[in-house]
């Protein structure tokens, strides 16, 4: 008897609690900000990849004001650690979570299954689900443009590329840079040094120095630290940055940089969640979407060079110029893309060969 009464009381309590919950839930819809979380692979102070994402977070806060409340967790190792962090963030009431590194792909999908009402956005991945979307920017468009710039600025016709790991994303960048350079300077060739690291300022700068010693006079990079810019400044040659404007590290060397511009995308995604219009999709934003941009040209870049690059930039943005349009030859001179055709997104995402003009063999 007592047990039943207790049970009833318990039930009443539960129901009233639920009612209260519903009531506050309804209120919350109008007043509580949307909680948005970010998971970063590096420190926000890396001056590179994570720095760009965090700038975008701040941009979103500025644009949406009180409608959003953001948090971030930095330096999260890819793998099991990431899963724990993402779960915690979802549990803490975040309704939109950006996971900003390739290695977060599987953890994101796994956590997303347990939190169907939370939306996830994963950078640079290729697996999606009902509540997991993916996004990236068409860095290769910026690479092509900076390649043109380098091709016009070089005197030795030898360009240097500090690279991290031989994956399609990086190879695509090297190829786009080379094609851009050779579009304006057929004599241009590109040297590549792999440092087997995303982030090691000392090693990156030594890699750049090594190539400069071999005659390279414009250096660019697909690594995350400003080391190469620094080396170029010391050696008195030019450099092109990546991720964000790196001119402070080499005021004389820095010509421009291929810079991510995640801000508009993040803002749009948060707005979509607020409006209830969010869907899982793959966004590969380019110059036309303002998803990336070139950092301001330095004073050393002459007017006519700027004009050429700006013109190409508008052509790419309008869809009139495709960096990987045929005819394209690989290093052996074999035609990989015939004239009149351009590579599809799928082909570009799986790129595993060097175009003509890149020196050395692609490591396997």
């Amino acid at each position, binding site marked *: 008897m007592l047990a039943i009464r207790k049970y009833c009381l318990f039930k009443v309590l539960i129901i009233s609690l639920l009612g209260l919950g519903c009531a506050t839930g309804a209120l919350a819809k109008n007043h509580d900000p949307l909680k948005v979380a970010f998971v970063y692979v*590096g420190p926000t*102070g890396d*001056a590179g990849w994570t*720095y760009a994402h965090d700038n975008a977070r701040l941009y979103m806060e500025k644009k949406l004001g009180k409608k959003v409340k953001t948090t971030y967790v930095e330096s999260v190792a890819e793998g099991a650690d990431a899963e724990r962090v993402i779960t915690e963030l979802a549990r803490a009431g975040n309704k939109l979570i950006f996971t900003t590194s390739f290695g977060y792909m599987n953890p994101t999908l796994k956590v997303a299954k347990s939190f169907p009402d939370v939306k996830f956005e994963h950078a640079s991945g290729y697996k999606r689900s009902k509540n997991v979307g993916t996004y990236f920017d068409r860095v290769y468009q910026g690479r092509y443009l900076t390649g043109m710039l380098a091709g016009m600025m070089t005197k030795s016709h030898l360009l240097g590329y500090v690279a991290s790991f031989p994956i399609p994303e990086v190879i695509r960048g090297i190829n786009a840079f080379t094609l851009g350079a050779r579009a304006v300077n057929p004599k241009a060739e590109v040297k590549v040094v792999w440092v087997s690291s995303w982030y090691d300022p000392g090693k990156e700068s030594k890699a750049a120095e090594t190539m400069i010693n071999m005659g390279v006079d414009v250096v660019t990079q697909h690594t995350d630290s400003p080391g190469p810019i620094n080396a170029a400044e010391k050696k008195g040659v030019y450099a092109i940055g990546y991720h964000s404007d790196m001119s402070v590290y080499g005021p004389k060397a820095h010509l421009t940089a291929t810079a991510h511009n995640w801000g508009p995308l993040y803002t749009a995604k948060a707005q979509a969640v607020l409006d209830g219009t969010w869907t899982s999709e793959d966004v590969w934003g380019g110059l036309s979407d303002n998803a990336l941009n070139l950092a301001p040209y330095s004073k050393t870049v002459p007017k006519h060079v700027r004009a050429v690059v700006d013109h190409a930039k508008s052509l790419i943005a309008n869809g009139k110029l495709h960096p990987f349009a045929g005819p394209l030859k690989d290093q052996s001179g074999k035609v990989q893309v015939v004239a009149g055709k351009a590579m599809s997104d799928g082909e570009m995402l799986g790129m595993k060969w060097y175009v003509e003009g890149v020196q050395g063999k692609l490591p396997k």
Partner: protein
Amino acid sequence: MDMDLIANILFATIRMGTPLLIVAIGELVCEKSGVLNLGQEGMMLMGAVVGFMIAFHTDSLTMGFIAAIVAGALMSLLFAVVTMQFYANQVATGLALTILGVGLSGFIGRGYVGEALSSVDFQIPLLSSIPFFGKVLFSHDLLVYISIGLAIAVYWFFKSTRAGLIVKAVGESPESAQSLGLSVLKVRYLAIIFGGSMAGLAGGYLSLIDTPLWAENMTAGRGWIALALVVFASWRVERAVLGAYLFGFMSIMHLVLQSFGLSVSSNLLATLPYVATVVVLVLLSRNQQRIKLFAPMSLGKSFHSAH
């Protein structure tokens, strides 16, 4: 390969090896006294960030380096207090020191990311214009010469001074040392602080000279490499110097071979410095008996004084 290129490679070798050399010498002295401090990475990072901050505000590299040394020393003092006064486990405390250094340096350096110092070029006049040798030997920054001087001083310290003998005695058998009337704690404190100062100095070398900028975690594991160097060098100064430069040389060759277009896996090449350094040092010290002679007997053990 022309002479110019070789000169450049050797030049870069010395530049790459110098921070490792400085940390390794500091840790070597510390370990000789019987203390294993795994916090090198943390102390280096604190040296790097504090050195950069001070140099940025004072516009003086000297002030920056002094600050870097002080920062490293303070970190090591913390380690010393915890392990000597409270008998905490040295390995655990060292790891904690690394984690603390990584986090704290990132925190206090937050506002300095994206700032830059103007890079300095230090060359010895006249001598640096000698062909080849001028480039390789006489056109480095001052710290390269200081680090070599330091290595020689520490070598001499252990080989022919009474103080060096005392440090060794404390590392071999603190009990005996104490019964001889030596202050184990005092010696170990000094050795730990020397190690911390050197780690701070090496950190400063990275953020002030090598790549004059502050970025979080910029040491990228060099503290750990230096720790390994000390062991593989079987606690001998001259081998630690050799190991540091060898590591620097192989790191540079990894980059040079690639720019020659060698088609070997870059990942494999990247392991070369580690493999080569380990192999050479192991070969040098392949006599097990002799290694035992060189490893300080009380390394890593807490010392409880008798009273």
